[in-house]
Each structure stands twice: as C-alpha cells, then as structure tokens.
C-alpha cells in the first residue's frame, strides 16, 4: 500500500505539467494572433494616412492662408452640405430664402419655381433653375458664350504655358489640366490604319442619330486630330465607383503622320496642340460665381467633350481675396477638367470647387463623385500605389467619353446647353 500511494502521489505531481504546457501553448498562439492583428492594423492605418500627408500641399501665403491649410476643409464642406440638406420648417422657408436673397443679391423674379415654400432646404434653393428665356444666348454664332453667371476675374492669352491668376500670380497650364502625356501604346497597339469601330447608335441601327451626329460635326467643323489621338487608347484609372470598362479607341488613319510627327517633338505640353505654323494661340478666361449667383453652368459653344479628369484636391475658398493671396489656388483645389474640341481646335472647361460648394455635378457623367470620402480614399490609394511603383502620382482619375458615337467620339454639347452645376457641400 505504501508503494502504491507513492506512485499515485507522483502521478498527481506530474499532471499539472502537460496541462500547463497546453495552456501556455494556447496562450502563445493567442498572443501571436493578437500581435499579428495589431501589426496589420497599424500597417493599414499607416497605409491610409501616408498618402494624405503626402498629397496635402502646404501652400505659401500669409498667416490666414497658413491657418486655413491646417483645417479639414473637405470634411467641413461635407458637413456644410449635410446641414443644408436638412428640411426646413415650411414657415421658415420664405423668410429664410428672402433673407438669403437680400444678403447675396439673388433675383427672385427670374427663378422658375415662384413658390419659395416648395424649396425644402437651402441646398435646393441654391441649385434653383431659371425661367425659360431668362438667359438669352448671344445671336452671333461665332461668339463664345459665358458658361455661368458671375464675374470675369481674369482673361488673356497663354504665353509660355503660364496662366495668370490675379495680381500677376501665375500657374502653369499643365498644373491646371494635368500633363498632356501620350501613351506609348499609340504607335505599338493602336490599329491606326483600321476604320473606326461602329458606334452604339450604328450597332443599334439608329441611323437618324448617326446622321444627326455627322451633321453636328460637319456644321461645327469639329475634327479629330491631335488631342484625341494623343490621349491614345485610354483605359480608365479606376476609382472605386467606376465600373470596369475597356475603352480602347481607334483613331482615324488620316492623322497618323501628324500624330507621329507630334510625338517626335518630345515631351508634349498643351501648347503642342497648336498646329505648327498655324496662327492659333491658347486663350483662357476665369469666371467667379458668388454665393448668390445661379449655380448651374452651361456650354459656351458647340463642342465635343472627349475626356474628363477629376482632381481630388483640397477645397479652399476661391473668393477673390484668396485668389489674390494664395498662389496657384486653382491647381490646389478639387476640380473637374473636361477636355475636348471645338471648331477652332482644343477646348477645355474646368469647374473648380470651393469650401462651400464642393460638389461639382456633370449632367452627362453619372459616375463622377466629387467631394466624396470614397473618391478621396481611392485617390490616396492611387497615390500610394504610384509611390510604391516609383512613379509620380498624376493627381487625377481619368475617364473618356468616347464610344457613344463613331462620328463625334465624345459627348457633344450645344451652345447654351446646361452641363451641370455646383452644389452646396
């Protein structure tokens, strides 16, 4: 019995060892899992924050500008937009909108909706429509029309690639529109000598629309040479909102030699759009819309939009004061660059957002989302990926409008046609 008791005692002493080892092992596994998860989370956070720090350009300027550059302007703009989308009590609407109109000089007589109570909030009132005929178009077909109500801040001729802002401050056209870089695939992959692919209308057998588009191109003298071809067979730089879509283009064979000659010039800039030896130059105009102005914008001429570039930048105020004090303001702010052609050649149209009106709407581009957290994150990721590949981040997401028509190869706009607008927040 004594020996048996000793054996039993020794068994009892050995039991905790395997149990302890098991518990210790499980603890180590758990610790490893938690540690790994934390490391991954930290790396992800750094990944998300790094591009934002990189993208945020600290502007030069007086102390007001420096303070403004530290504020979360886009978040403030989105909050401002949400606040203005809150439905107002009916009894407050008429006095509220009348007070706004008094302060900012809104002409209530020209608004299409005469009953102010029908505007549920300030955002709806801000994006109001006008009565038909309230804005007659200039009769001269050779005139370039004002795209919006506003004030002419600056206009002139682009010399040496520079656009004058206000008070002599300048920024380059490349900074505003993005680099005009042809893709190397133009010469290697694009079937330049093949006829253009049939348009959707042709495929659908809608001959009437095809005829109309051909007539539009003929009447407006719109041809497709350098700008269209230099863009090359573009594939979308996808944002999270963009649908996957292969958008290869097939330029006409007529301009092959012209394009190749252009490519031989070296690094292209927007000035190379001008035909060598021609008497054409690039002009620019800057129109500022005050808070009380009608905030929808229209097409200034008959033209075809071929591409859109969305720069998800900052949202500084674009008031004349800040334009005087913040150099290159338009190249910092979020903007949508629409590139295309009119009868005299290259044409671009750039709505630039501001803190109070950060949302830019383009009627014929349903995928475009401006002042959006999603697109900001997509831009941050694109910047991060470009940095990882050792390439410079271009700063924009591009989409092409080709494909709707073989004739026009872009979205055709008639003079005076509503194109979109600026919305609060």
């Amino acid at each position: 019995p004594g020996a048996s008791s000793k054996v039993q005692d020794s068994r009892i002493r050995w039991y905790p060892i395997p149990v302890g080892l098991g518990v210790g092992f499980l603890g180590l596994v758990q610790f490893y899992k938690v540690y790994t998860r934390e490391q991954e989370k930290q790396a992800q956070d750094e990944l998300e924050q790094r591009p934002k720090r990189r993208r945020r350009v600290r502007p030069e300027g007086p102390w007001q500008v420096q303070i403004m550059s530290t504020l979360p302007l886009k978040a403030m703009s989105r909050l401002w937009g949400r606040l203005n989308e809150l439905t107002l009590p009916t009894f407050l609407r008429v006095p509220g909108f009348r007070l706004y109109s008094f302060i900012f000089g809104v002409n209530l007589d020209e608004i299409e909706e005469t009953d102010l109570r029908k505007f549920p909030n300030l955002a709806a009132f801000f994006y109001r429509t006008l009565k038909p005929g309230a804005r007659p178009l200039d009769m001269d077909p050779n005139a370039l029309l004002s795209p919006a109500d506003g004030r002419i801040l600056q206009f002139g001729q682009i010399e040496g690639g520079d656009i004058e802002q206000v008070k002599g401050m300048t920024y380059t056209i490349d900074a505003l529109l993005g680099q005009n870089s042809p893709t190397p695939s133009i010469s290697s992959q694009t079937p330049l000598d093949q006829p253009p692919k049939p348009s959707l209308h042709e495929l659908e057998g809608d001959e009437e629309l095809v005829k109309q588009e051909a007539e539009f191109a003929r009447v407006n003298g719109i041809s497709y040479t350098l700008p269209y071809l230099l863009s090359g067979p573009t594939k979308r730089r996808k944002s999270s909102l963009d649908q996957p879509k292969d958008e290869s283009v097939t330029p006409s064979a007529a301009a092959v030699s012209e394009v190749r000659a252009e490519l031989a010039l070296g690094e292209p800039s927007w000035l190379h759009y001008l035909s060598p030896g021609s008497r054409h130059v690039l002009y620019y105009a800057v129109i500022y819309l005050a808070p009380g102005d009608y905030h929808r914008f229209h097409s200034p001429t008959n033209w075809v939009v071929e591409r859109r570039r969305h720069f998800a930048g900052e949202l500084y105020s674009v008031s004349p004061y800040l334009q005087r004090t913040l150099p290159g303001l338009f190249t910092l702010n979020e903007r949508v660059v629409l590139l295309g052609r009119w009868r005299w050649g290259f044409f671009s149209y750039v709505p630039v957002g501001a803190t109070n009106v950060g949302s830019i709407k383009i009627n014929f581009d349903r995928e475009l989302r401006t002042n959006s957290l999603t697109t900001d994150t997509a831009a941050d990721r694109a910047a991060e990926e470009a940095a990882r590949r050792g390439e410079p981040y271009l700063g924009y997401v591009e989409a092409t409008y080709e494909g709707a028509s073989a004739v026009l190869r872009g979205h055709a706009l008639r003079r005076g046609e509503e194109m979109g607008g600026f919305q609060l927040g």
Partner: protein
Amino acid sequence: STIVLVFEAPSAEHDEAGRHTGGWQWCVEKGQRVKVGQALGRI
C-alpha cells in the same frame, strides 16, 4: 466656385492703328459681371 476656360483660337490680328482686323477678340473686361449666354469674345 469658379470656372476656367482654356481654348485654342485664331490669334488676334490688328492693323497699324491697333484696330482689330481678325482672329479672336474679347468682348468683356476684368471685373465685369456676366450672365449665361452673354458673349465673352468672338472670332
């Protein structure tokens, strides 16, 4: 908010007296208020 237009057009031509004889011509002045449809310039 602001709209910037950048476009190609035939350069302005002037005679010896400085009068516009062809090409692009602006119809506005800096600081001028404009409305939709009003001419900014013409060729």
